[in-house]
């Protein structure tokens, strides 16, 4: 599965009413476009840790601003 598809599945797991698969484009901004709040980010952290079997720090999370950046984070950690 391509990383973008993996990230799309993960964002859809948040079950946000306003987000459809089509909204999860590489350039989509997590806060401004997808309207994720801090509790969504807390859930995203847990789901990402589960998916990558790696610890995600608060600093890591700050770098995740767009879908593209989440994809890059996944790629970076998948290689390890």
């Amino acid at each position, binding site marked *: 599965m391509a990383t973008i598809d993996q990230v799309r599945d993960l964002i859809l*797991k948040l*079950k946000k009413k306003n987000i459809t698969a089509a909204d999860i484009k590489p350039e989509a901004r997590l806060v401004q476009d997808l309207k994720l*709040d801090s*509790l969504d980010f*807390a*859930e995203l952290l*847990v*789901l990402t*840790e589960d998916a990558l079997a790696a610890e995600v720090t*608060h600093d890591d999370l700050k770098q995740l601003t767009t879908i593209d950046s989440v994809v890059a984070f996944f790629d970076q950690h998948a290689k390890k």
Partner: protein
Amino acid sequence: MSRERVNAAIVGVGGCLPEKVLTNEELAQMFSVDAEWIEQRTGIKERRTADASQAASDLGVVAAERALAQAGISASEVDLIIVATTLGDMQTPSTACIIQERLGIKNVPAFDLSAACTGFVYALTVGAQFIANEFYRTILVIGVDLGSKMVNWSDRDTCILFADGAGAVLLRPAKPGYGFLAMQIGADGSGSRSLQIPAGGSRMPVTPEIIEAKLNKVCMNGFRIFSFAMKKIAEVTEQALTAAGIRKEDVNLIIPSQANLRIIEASMRLLEFPMEKVMVNLDKYGNMSAASIPIALGEAVADGRIKPGDVIVLTGVGAGTTWGSIVIRWG
């Protein structure tokens, strides 16, 4: 021939809520927060708050009397009292001793137990050991917390969450195959700074400066607690079910800590368990910490959501950090 382990069973449950209702609209006016924002963020619509004269034992005694009445057990039959609470009546003696006197019970052991929102699950686990080794036959377990007296009323992140209540149960030996099938409890002290009341103990005595800085009130890192709670509710529930040899599909009802609806929903997504089989009443009562699970249990029983033979799971997570889960075959 070895004997079968004696399980503990819950044979009576009772709750007590203060009369005063505090709605999101009132909070919105009082603290410049938005009523819809509170509900969207927490799932809470209103909560109960004690009046200035009410302490933990006042609610705990009423909950205990109701549990005794439901069980048809007289106070004189109680062998042990355990009270799970974060902020008892006073530093010492224990609230359990105060409740013992007010129930007219003489000489039986009574102690408090501190595990925040996991307190009730911890207390049940402790009580069940005395049943298992046949040391005691009738155990009163109370969960009581008055969140309104613990929060900093200028900190909107906590004042919208925590609320007041008490719940109580009576434990007795179960018939074979029933009662507590498995219990899992745990703690991770490295998370102790995520949710704490820093002052008021021996580390930081209360002074006028401490009161001014509100360090004698709840201080919470909501982000850390959310991710911990979500992950741990799913994890410890799964562990307890595995230990009990019960499949998720065979669980009739999960009663989790009523901390925040979004935590419950996120943890159930992680557990892959349907919300239709999850007890939620925090919309009416907020997070009553150690009292949340027994009050939710009492409502579930009263509403007919739990029938004899059902498998239910009580799962708590809280400050410490602490967690615990108990799988029960009801009846």
